[in-house]
């Protein structure tokens, strides 16, 4: 929930033509963002989806006032985050990529002291700490020093620390990295609850299932550019069919299936995107040619492959 002093009448985040060029002495310049424009509307959960090195973290660091853009503008609730970061900072909270809690604090101390540094009263900080520990499944380990916790528990502590702020706009950089499936679902549930209460969030991920399950809208980012934007369903529809047929180890049959729809290959298998009404005909050919096939619904992976031309797991 936005704090009482927060001016949250404007859009939570508006970025226009954002560029970032890293210059290091003795090394060639690297353009991490090449004119990114995007918006995050109130109470939305928006995901930036991209491969490692696509520019997601750079965007998040600029949006969270920790990195200056080379050009372009970015506003947080109407405040210029580059020129006037002091107005933006009370309205945001950030889970940094691979951030760790203080090893010599317990999860309870980590969350409570962080809330106190943000100016919350003791009573509110205690209540929110207890709630966040419960939401993140950390009650059993709440009084153990973070140094004794697993990597997933530490990551959950970081997420709990940030969601307990109830900041109007949350930035989460790979929030569920290193977590087991149950913990990831607990984080998703907590983030959904926070948006229901009024928070807005922008997260980066390269987990396609996370982007699908969690985000209201997503942006596919590649080499510092936004390639596609829409809901997960819209992006899936853009692939050209609702079913995918994967044919293992037979990449030479591209021509055989091209007439059925979009054909993609990752070098080891063929994926054919089809509409349900042409599935029977395609399967008949596959049986005749004795090909091993699996059929499933189109996922974000196909949308990503179509937009980027590569799997999300391939590094830059």
């Amino acid at each position, binding site marked *: 929930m936005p704090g009482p002093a927060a001016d949250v009448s404007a859009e939570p985040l508006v970025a226009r033509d954002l560029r970032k060029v890293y210059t290091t002495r003795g090394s060639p310049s690297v353009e991490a963002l090449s004119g990114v424009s995007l918006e995050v509307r109130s109470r939305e959960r928006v995901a930036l989806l991209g491969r490692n090195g696509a520019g997601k973290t750079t965007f998040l660091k600029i949006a969270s006032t920790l990195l200056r853009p080379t050009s372009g503008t970015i*506003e947080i609730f109407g405040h210029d985050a580059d020129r006037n970061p002091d107005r933006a900072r009370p309205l945001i909270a*950030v*889970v940094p990529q691979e951030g760790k809690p203080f*090893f010599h*604090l317990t999860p309870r101390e980590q969350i409570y002291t*962080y809330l106190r*540094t943000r100016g919350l009263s003791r009573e509110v900080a205690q209540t929110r700490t207890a709630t966040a520990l419960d939401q993140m499944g950390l009650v059993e380990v709440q009084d153990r020093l973070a140094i004794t916790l697993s990597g997933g528990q530490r990551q959950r502590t970081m997420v709990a620390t940030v969601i307990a702020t109830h900041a109007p706009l949350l930035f989460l950089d790979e929030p569920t990295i290193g977590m087991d499936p149950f913990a990831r679902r607990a984080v998703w549930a907590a983030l959904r609850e926070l948006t229901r209460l009024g928070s807005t969030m922008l997260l980066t991920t390269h987990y396609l299932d996370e982007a699908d399950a969690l985000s209201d809208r997503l942006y596919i980012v590649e080499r510092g550019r936004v390639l596609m934007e829409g809901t997960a369903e819209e992006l899936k529809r853009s692939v050209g069919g609702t079913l995918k047929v994967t044919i293992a180890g037979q990449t030479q049959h591209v021509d055989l299936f091209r007439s059925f729809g979009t054909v993609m290959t990752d070098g080891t298998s063929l994926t054919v995107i089809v509409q349900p009404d042409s599935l029977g005909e395609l399967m008949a050919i596959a049986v005749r040619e004795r090909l091993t096939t699996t059929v499933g619904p189109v996922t974000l992976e196909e949308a990503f492959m179509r937009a980027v031309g590569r799997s999300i797991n391939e590094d830059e």
Partner: protein
Amino acid sequence: MRTSESPAPYRAFRGLSAFFWTEVRVQSHESTAMATSMVVQGVLLVFVFILDRSLLPVAFLGAIIFSMFTMGQRLLNEAAYVRIDHKATDLYLASPLTPEAFFLGMAAGVMLVYLSPVIILFVFAEIVVGYSLPTVLLLVGTGALVWLFSASFGYVISTFFRDNRAIWAYASLIFNGFGVLPPVFYPLSYFPAALQPIALMLPPSAATALLQASIGVTSLSIGAIALAASALAGETLAMFLFTIYWARRKVRED
């Protein structure tokens, strides 16, 4: 775009108290480090005790000033560790907590926790030597300035490193170099006369020169006292103000 928007009302040390207590909690678990923080001073005191006990009044004062000075090294290590290893600095700086409060809260937290062995050392020194009240007051004042200088210096230096392993070597070199080589543990008169003005301009040895003068071990002219006092106060103030500026500047990478 609201380029004409007025800056936010700025409270430079917003969040200081809460972050200070956070750091105290973090540091108070480092009991081994607290104990070993006295190793260099302890070894040097043992040497002085064996070689020339008449220098113990100087050595105790030097050990206390050196302890305050090396708190800057601990802050350097802590600030770099939190930023590089924990990547937690972003969590705090992208929040209402101001960068000044982050720096000063961390510095004061480290100081409070590491002050306890210094107090034990001071009590021991009082039992063995027994300093006068003016000397004790001067020790508190100069010790506070030396701490503020070294904490500010350590925080600024911490921002230049990208690798923790490099820090340990450089930090040890810098802090032991400025804390042990100049006349901190030994009388100023033992230092080459031509280099004494330099010693009077380095905060740790400027502090100990004033303290040595107050117990009558070193004779300082009015000019030398003025030089040492103004160097200690002026450099501390300048370093502190620069660190405030630097902390704000380094919140955001370019």
